[in-house]
């Protein structure tokens, strides 16, 4: 059985102008020790689905799902108190902006030791020892000294290391990294990704990497799930996905990679992700899809089979059947 199992997860936000569906019947599985990347443009609901799992959405959000199981616990049936025992302990998350994600009023050591105290019940001396270990593990030099430093006194990269140390403090079984490198320099990005992968290798935890950077996906991920406008539209292992994308959106995303460009002008995907008011009736990608026909515009395609990457498309690419059309 997989570590994390999500079935038919939907998240609706109550806004002043009515309901907005940010995540639309998403299924997701993560196994122990696996690196899953969730890719998509801004507003595709990739962060929201994971925040829903963590129980971190604001009160305006309504989360519904058929199944939400983590490590054998049914999160749907759990009250907040019981869920807090898991969140931050076995299930941890790091965020996009390390600078603003750390509390400016407390030393970073205090912020790490807090988790150790509440989840593991370590005493003062044990907490201190473990915090130093964690800092060493994430590659923060001079850990003893750094514990008493405030977030504003460190660089973004160092702060992200602190965030990671904080997240892995209780040896989580699953770590969700929500665009962990977006706010960092390119050189630091590579270091942080290396750190996350090596931590996965050491501890055998599952890793969910939310990103919009296909380069990051190619380097780090093992399995990729592509999200568009709240729906999961395709899911494959990383190599086949790059080689043979089935959904036109995935293909268009890959074509837009500068590394793959063959022409002088970089191909782009025209239009934007549909918002609250311009949600199409049929396939959500149909207004931007160059293959779309009337059927696409009228009906919402259900996910295809495993062999076609569960692509939500009537006319998947790179298949033998496709040749006919």
């Amino acid at each position, binding site marked *: 059985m997989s570590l994390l199992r999500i079935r038919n997860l939907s998240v609706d936000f109550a806004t002043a102008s009515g309901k907005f569906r940010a995540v639309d019947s998403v299924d997701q599985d993560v196994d122990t020790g696996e690196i899953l990347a969730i890719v998509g443009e801004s507003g595709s609901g990739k962060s929201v689905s994971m925040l829903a799992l963590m129980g971190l959405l604001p009160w305006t959000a309504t989360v519904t799902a058929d199944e939400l199981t983590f490590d054998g616990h049914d999160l749907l049936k759990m009250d907040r108190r019981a869920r807090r025992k898991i969140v931050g302990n076995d299930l941890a998350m790091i965020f996009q902006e390390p600078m603003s994600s750390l*509390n*400016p009023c407390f030393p970073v050591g205090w912020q790490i030791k*807090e988790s150790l105290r509440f989840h593991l019940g370590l005493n003062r001396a044990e907490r201190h020892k473990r915090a130093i270990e964690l800092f060493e593990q994430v590659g923060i030099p001079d850990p003893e000294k750094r514990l008493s430093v405030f977030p*504003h006194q460190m660089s973004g990269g160092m702060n992200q290391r602190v965030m990671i140390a904080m997240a892995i403090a209780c040896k989580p079984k699953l770590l969700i990294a929500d665009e962990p490198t977006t706010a960092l320099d390119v050189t630091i990005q590579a270091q942080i990704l290396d750190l996350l992968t090596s931590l996965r290798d050491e501890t055998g935890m599952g890793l969910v990497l939310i990103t919009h950077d296909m380069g990051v996906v190619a380097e780090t991920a093992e399995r990729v799930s592509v999200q568009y406008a709240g729906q999961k539209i395709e899911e494959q292992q990383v190599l086949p996905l790059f080689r043979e994308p089935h959904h036109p959106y995935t293909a268009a995303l890959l074509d837009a990679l500068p590394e793959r460009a063959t022409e002088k002008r970089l191909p782009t995907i025209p239009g934007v992700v549909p918002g609250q008011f311009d949600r199409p009736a049929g396939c959500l990608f149909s207004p931007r899809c160059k293959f779309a026909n009337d059927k696409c515009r009228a009906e919402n395609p259900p996910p295809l089979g495993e062999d076609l990457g569960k692509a939500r498309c009537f006319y998947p690419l790179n298949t033998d059947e496709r040749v006919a059309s």
Partner: protein
Amino acid sequence: MLKYVLSRLATFIPTFIGVTLISFAFIRMLPGDPIVVMAGERGISEERYLELQQQFGFDRPIYVQFWDYFTGVLQGDLGNSFVTKRPVWDEFFSLFPATLELSVCAMIFAVALGLPAGVIAAVNRGKFFDRALMSTALVGYSMPIFWWALLLIIVFSGNLGWTPVSGRIDLLYYFPNATGFMLIDSIASGQDGAFTSALRHLLLPTIVLGTIPLAVIARQTRSAMLEVLGEDYIRTARAKGMSSGRINGIHALRNALIPVITVIGLSVGTLLAGAILTETIFSWPGIGKWMVDSIFRRDYPVVQGGLLLIAVMVMVVNLTVDMLYGIINPKIRKR
């Protein structure tokens, strides 16, 4: 840090000169003559009037009078009261403990109720408690102090008879004025019931004086908390599985305290102004009542000296507040 303190202290100098000048000019701008007031209803003869004018130095040009006063102030001499002939300095500090006791209690009352109220309102934003609290705070803020005081006196002292109407302690008790703080002195005296009596006398003035700061602090805490609760680090704390009590009370509140401390500091000025009314209504023998009496007597040295000392206190409080910023949020120290 030392450099910061010194630079802040340097800004004191112009403020200090300004306050000295304004307080000196203010009382002289009021119509009325201290000598005539002292003479009372029987009046005073022309020769005696001129003699007294000379004695007090009122016949000299105003700038000479100011220079005399100012150089005196710099040497720590605020002059003597016209009425009691005692040094202003001594009078101020024999009465100040009463005001300080009242102000401190009012502040404790305001912070102890306002801070949690603001936090709870922010956490329950838009719900019944939030709305009820914020409208109550608005009423409290807009209520005239003297009217509120009279209302409380009528209900609690008059109708219910729970609290005394005025003074600091029942006449039953007498003990030497060791610290000037009635709550401390009454315990030190060891007399049965003295402390309770002092406490009961303190109750209504504290509520009256603390109401406006309470309302301001509650509203400020609420808005600061609302802002902080949307920050990324609050999400991080929740992702760590911390309880909402801990998140609101420690992670968020510490950050929200900065603007709250600012209004607390500013409230000290309001508090001393409010103390003047409150002390007058409750016959509280503090500097507020002393100042009001002195204004009516045109007791120039007392009014200008008292104003100056109050202003210096407000300045010191605000300096302390500035230092507290750096302690609460170390990021501010950098600037």
